[in-house]
């Protein structure tokens, strides 16, 4: 043990402070948690990848831990052609997805052959105090290379005082031939003062054939 003490002492300065050479784990790869200051501003909570799934639900991790939550959508591909990616919130942990919402929906479109383009509000896709699902991708195609990608932000879902705002922006390839590119903006609020604690995503018809939805908390 005397030898170990002598070796250890060589890693200690005259003031009794360990030098950096005293630590054999420069990669910190056994550390399981970091101080809050190091933990960053964007924390992955849960990632789900669809494989012919009827829906993807996030029934945990949405609470008062974070004030802002962000869902990122990577290459959402539907089983059926001309379907919408829809979502809804729950105040009972996912038993029911039917929270009242008021929303806006507008989109920029441009066809691959340049025969048409537009920037327009879509009155057929918004909601006014409806408990139905809100579409965030419109008329998605199921061609082999067709998908939608983007993000959805949800603000302070655990509040029991205020309504819960959200806004999304996803780009997608629509179902027509030749297809449009669509840059879709949706925003609104869950008109409830109950906490939102679960979110469900599904296509308007058929399964989510493939794609990843990841939930992040923003500190």
């Amino acid at each position, binding site marked *: 043990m005397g030898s170990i003490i002598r070796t250890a*002492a060589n890693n200690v300065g005259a003031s*009794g402070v360990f030098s950096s050479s005293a630590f054999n784990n*420069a990669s910190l790869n056994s550390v399981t948690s970091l101080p809050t200051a190091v933990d960053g501003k964007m924390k992955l909570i849960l990632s789900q990848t669809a494989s012919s799934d009827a829906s993807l639900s996030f029934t945990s991790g949405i609470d008062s831990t974070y004030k802002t939550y962000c869902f990122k959508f990577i290459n959402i591909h539907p089983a059926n052609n001309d379907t919408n990616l829809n979502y809804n919130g729950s105040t009972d942990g996912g038993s029911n997805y039917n929270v009242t919402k008021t929303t806006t929906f507008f989109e*920029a479109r441009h066809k691959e052959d340049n025969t048409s383009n537009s*920037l327009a509000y879509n009155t057929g896709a918004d909601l006014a105090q409806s408990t139905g699902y809100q579409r965030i991708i419109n008329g998605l195609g199921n061609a082999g*290379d*067709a998908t939608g990608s983007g993000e959805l932000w949800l603000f302070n879902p655990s509040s029991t005082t205020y309504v819960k705002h959200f806004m999304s922006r996803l*780009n997608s390839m629509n179902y027509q031939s030749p297809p449009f590119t669509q840059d879709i903006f949706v925003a609104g609020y869950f008109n409830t003062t109950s906490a939102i604690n679960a979110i469900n995503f599904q296509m308007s018809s058929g399964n989510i054939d493939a794609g990843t939805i990841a939930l992040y908390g923003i500190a």
Partner: protein
Amino acid sequence: MGTRITSLANNFDTTGKLKAAGINNASLSGITALPSGANAGKKTLLSTQTASASASLSFTSGLDSTYDAYCFKYVNVHPSVSTDEQWQFQVSTDGGSSYGVAVVSTAFRGYHFENDAGAALENRSPDNQEGRSNETTYQTLGYQGGAVADENCSGEIWLYNPSSTTYVKHFISKNCIVGYDSGNGGFLQNYYVAGYFNTTSAINAVDFKFASGNIDAGTIKLYGVSTS
């Protein structure tokens, strides 16, 4: 050695735990890697490029399957030319040897003149404006003025799953750009440009430039975001 042992002992508390003062590297500056769990979901900075009269800024490494989404943030980009010029980007499937992948895109902007001469929300998707329909030209993100020294643009582009060999590659961007009109002077443009690079080949490089002249100044940072 006895002195050091005594000093060392003073750096332990009564429960035998090492005090923070007992480590001379409070900043952890010697740490070269963090556990993988600590990086999950974080926006990881991959590279930074700063222009100095540069013809273009290219990112030819770091764009691969490591991350599911990549984000470019550009700050205070200023052109060398004095007239309005198009701020643009394109991608490559051959590591940057060529930049010319077919792109289908939309564009719109809100604008407002500093002299309050006009303000509007405007569709800019036609091909003769900023939209593209399977063209291989550079994608314009907006018209940047260069006549005044303080004019610049800042914004971001998200590029999703560029390494996919199955799907087209979606991108969405938002930009704050100061334009210049000879009649009314400076005006703010809030541009939203999005679309997809219409290829199933992996995208592995991205190039930024002005349609003419150099990038006089500005910084572009590339981040990766993981979904696992």
